[in-house]
């Protein structure tokens, strides 16, 4: 790996100036490296983080045929990594005009990393530095504990997709003003509703009383509000305290829960394992925002590389070269998904609508298709809206809010299906649906979504760790359950059980004459199953 030459660096600096002028914001320092194939062999298993810890699985081809995207860390390969300073990688023979385009794309990503709130947890550190110190910790432990270090890494990684990423985000000061205190939230959301079962009018009265006090006394409003409550409900403070302790414990994710409560890990001679688990957890958390903003991030970077490249006066004469590469990157495939293309079109669409003032009640109420088409109140809110999205959205929110029927119709999008034609012995691709609802559903299905595994802390009398999979219509990969539970059992040091759903599929018997008609869809019946891992042996009971 070596830094790009001064000539190219000067081009990059020029790109930065233009990007900052256009409204992007990022730290001015960046590092650009030329990578050779040899570098890539070492970098790619480490997800382009040069200082990531060593682990033997990195030396093996990791099979990905099953739910590749579900696997840690979900392949968030980028030309640029989210570090401070941001580091990006290049071929050594890119022509200048291509580098200009890539630089703008990279700057789009850097701007996104450093401003989108889903990346809040990565803002206060330089991951390459942290990873380096982690790598040293692991190397040192390996010299003391040998292969057991790798077992701990393996077991920790078997649950590192279950880290509480959103819980982590919740605890961070994200710069967005909190509207009310935690105590106030507890009072209105939990205490009044769940403890006191207050009537609606009683609830509204309390809201009014609070607002009046707040208006009257300002800062002093809240204390006097609670003074009144304490008089009326002397138990309030005690209850609030209990609630807080409990919720603090509940917000522990599985990895943290094991680290805090495992008797095994907290034995003097085993505490070293906890540092490894923490490293694995931290690494996973670092990649979580990236995998949740793929469409948005690529759309954003593509939007800016196009816009800024075309305005750049230094590359006159390469418009056609650019057009060719750009079209290759951002064309919508006839069948298939391209995050660059989808994201870019969404940004275009949103910019245009916001410019014309089409987000709002007036437009929504309009039913006449012609007046909708011509609607333009010159609101000019386009770029502002895009920056808001870049700051506050993830892929899910982005798709959920903006992939609508108008968008689909405009870009001629549809859900493609694939089916077997028995007569012709071919796979047929066909237009399955042009409804926005179906298209969104198809996109949601494709988005990264780890299962939600809860910890049952209520029935615990013994030292068993009871995990409950919150079923969302999809089963867990059955072949992996045994291994994952084995790892958890090792870390927990005692019996572990997992409750989940499993499909019982009844395929209607195939007619002997296979050529007639489509096979009817199999009948799926969900059964609740409990797996128990005890002494490295897995058993299974059906719960119903």
């Amino acid at each position, binding site marked *: 790996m070596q830094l790009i030459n001064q000539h190219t660096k000067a081009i990059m600096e020029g790109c930065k100036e233009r990007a900052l002028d256009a409204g992007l914001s990022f730290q001015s320092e960046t590092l650009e490296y030329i990578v050779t194939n040899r570098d890539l062999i070492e970098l790619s298993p480490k997800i382009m983080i040069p200082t990531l810890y060593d682990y033997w699985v990195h030396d093996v081809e990791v099979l990905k045929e099953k739910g590749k995207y579900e696997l840690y860390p979900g392949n968030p390969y980028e030309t640029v990594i989210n570090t401070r300073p941001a580091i990006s990688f290049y071929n050594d023979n890119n022509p200048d005009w291509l580098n200009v385009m890539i630089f703008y794309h990279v700057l789009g990503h850097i701007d996104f990393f450093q401003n989108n709130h889903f990346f809040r947890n990565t803002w206060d550190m330089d991951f390459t530095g942290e990873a380096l110190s982690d790598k040293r910790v692991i190397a040192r432990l390996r010299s003391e504990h040998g292969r057991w270090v790798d077992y701990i890494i393996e077991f920790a990684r078997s649950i590192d*997709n279950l880290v509480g990423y959103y819980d982590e985000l919740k605890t961070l000061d994200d710069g967005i003003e909190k509207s009310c205190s935690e105590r106030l939230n507890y009072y209105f959301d939990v205490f009044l509703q769940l403890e006191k079962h207050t009537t609606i009018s009683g609830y509204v009265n309390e809201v009014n009383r609070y607002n009046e006090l707040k208006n009257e006394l300002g800062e002093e409003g809240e204390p006097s509000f609670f003074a009144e409550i304490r008089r009326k409900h002397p138990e309030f403070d005690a209850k609030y305290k209990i609630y807080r302790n409990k919720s603090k414990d509940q917000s522990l994710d599985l990895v943290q829960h094991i680290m805090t409560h495992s008797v095994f890990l907290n034995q003097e001679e085993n505490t070293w394992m906890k540092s490894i688990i923490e490293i694995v957890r931290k690494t996973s958390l670092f990649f979580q925002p990236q995998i949740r903003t793929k469409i948005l991030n690529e759309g954003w970077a593509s939007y800016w590389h196009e816009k800024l490249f075309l305005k750049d006066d230094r590359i006159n004469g390469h418009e056609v070269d650019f057009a060719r590469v750009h079209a290759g990157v951002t064309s919508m495939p006839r069948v298939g998904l391209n995050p660059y293309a989808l994201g870019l079109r969404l940004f275009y669409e949103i910019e245009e609508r916001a410019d014309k003032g089409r987000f709002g009640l007036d437009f929504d109420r309009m039913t006449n298709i012609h007046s909708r088409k011509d609607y333009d109140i010159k609101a000019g809110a386009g770029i502002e809206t895009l920056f808001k999205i870049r700051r506050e959205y993830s892929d899910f929110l982005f798709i959920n809010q903006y992939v609508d029927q108008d968008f689909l119709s405009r870009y001629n999008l549809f859900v493609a299906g694939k089916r077997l034609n028995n007569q012709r012995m071919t796979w047929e691709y066909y237009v399955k649906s042009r409804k926005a609802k179906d298209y969104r559903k198809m996109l949601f299905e494709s988005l990264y979504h780890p299962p939600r595994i809860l910890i049952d802390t209520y029935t615990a009398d013994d030292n068993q760790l009871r995990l409950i999979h919150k079923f969302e219509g999809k089963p*867990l990969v059955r072949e*992996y359950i045994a291994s994952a539970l084995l790892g958890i059992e090792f870390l927990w040091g005692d019996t572990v059980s997992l409750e989940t759903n499993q499909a019982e599929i009844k395929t209607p018997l195939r007619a002997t004459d296979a050529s007639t008609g489509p096979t009817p869809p199999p009948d799926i019946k969900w059964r609740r199953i409990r797996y128990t891992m005890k002494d490295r042996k897995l058993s299974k009971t059906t719960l119903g």
Partner: protein
Amino acid sequence: MQADKDTSNKEEEELSPEQSAIRNQEKNFEGCHEITMTPDIEMESTSDQLYSNNDLNVLQNITLTPSPLLWLKSLDELLERDKRRQEDGFPRKIHIGRLVRPGKSGEQKVVVVPSTVEEKLMHDRIRPQDDESEGSGGAGDGEEGEVIGEQPVRQQGEGQGGAGQGKGGEHEAGSDAYELGKILTEKFKLPNLKEKGKKRSLTRFTYDLTDRNRGTGQILDKKATLRKIITTNIALGRLKITEPPDPTRFLVAPQDKVYRILSREKDYESQAMVFFVRDYSGSMSGNPTKLIVTQHVLIYSWLLYQYANQVETRFILHDVEAKEVEDFYTYYNTNVAGGTQVSAAYKLVNKIVNDENLAKDYNIYVFHGTDGDDWDAEGKETIPELKKLLTYINRIGVTIARPGYARGRESEVQKYLDKSGLLKDAAHLLRMDVLEDDSDEERIIESIRRLIGEG
């Protein structure tokens, strides 16, 4: 993108004769091109498409998966580690014999690499084989329900779709497969054929006094020498046809003496002929096919090692009809067709062996993989064909890979094989093993042991 740039520069500089021919053809072409649509989403799910695109790849044409062969360097170490795992009480984790097909464009290769899976609690699709019902993204014209493109199910042959895909590469299986066979024999302790004392010797060479040498050697070949002397003397005019021969007048040149010398000869008898027979009927799609193919790769590799590359292989696919395909690549890649008739396959094997008179010169092995369905539910046609097979083969191993939905139900093939009593009567020749849908590598290797083991 690099490639694009390169070609654009080169185009101006030089064109190969074929390229310019194509260009001229295009220049003079009147009419319109019909673009055949073969969407390339066969193997990828939508989420893979969404997340596997990345900047390095898309913008700079940098691929992130270097040849898996590079990983082979640390194989010994990995296997050692795997052994330790077992000693430490954890299941093994290195899988071997997976086939990866790298390379986005053009020729794909069959490569054998060590691989592993990071097992986590994560979501699965509801049904493993529901590719056809899962939607993907699409853009462009077309009414709802309209077919916008199609792709032949059988990839090879005349169809325009995947034509050419199977070309090249199939020989790649060879060298790696040999390595794999070695590993299998050593790591998984598969039986060693040579020690089994088969009827025919398995050594590759014999030593015999077959070569002749003039002048010097180990044993004088008198007859050949005499013939030589006579020829010489006729030439010299010392032997006249009209007169009776007078041996005392003969001149004997040193070069006339013909000796026999010891030499190494190839022993053709030691070769093995393996028939891989695979059911590729509609019901085989998904896991059963994967299991069978994986197992056959492993067996193929193991035999290759055992017979020190002296293995010839034949590949037969069958649904209701059987056909021979030319290479492992086609055998491996050909997909799902119609119904099932096991007898057709055995009939074809019998025919090939008979027509080419193979039984005389070869150790013949047949490995048959199926999901166990057979329209000939009683085995009325299959059993007689099978009996014919048993007269000359060394071993037939039948693997029945049951699809998930048929868990626990006995298949037709299983039933009639049991009923025929052949499994007991000809246990040294015929073996059967049933694999469940979710069998892992370990189980597949266990199954190989059952198919080829002695006991």
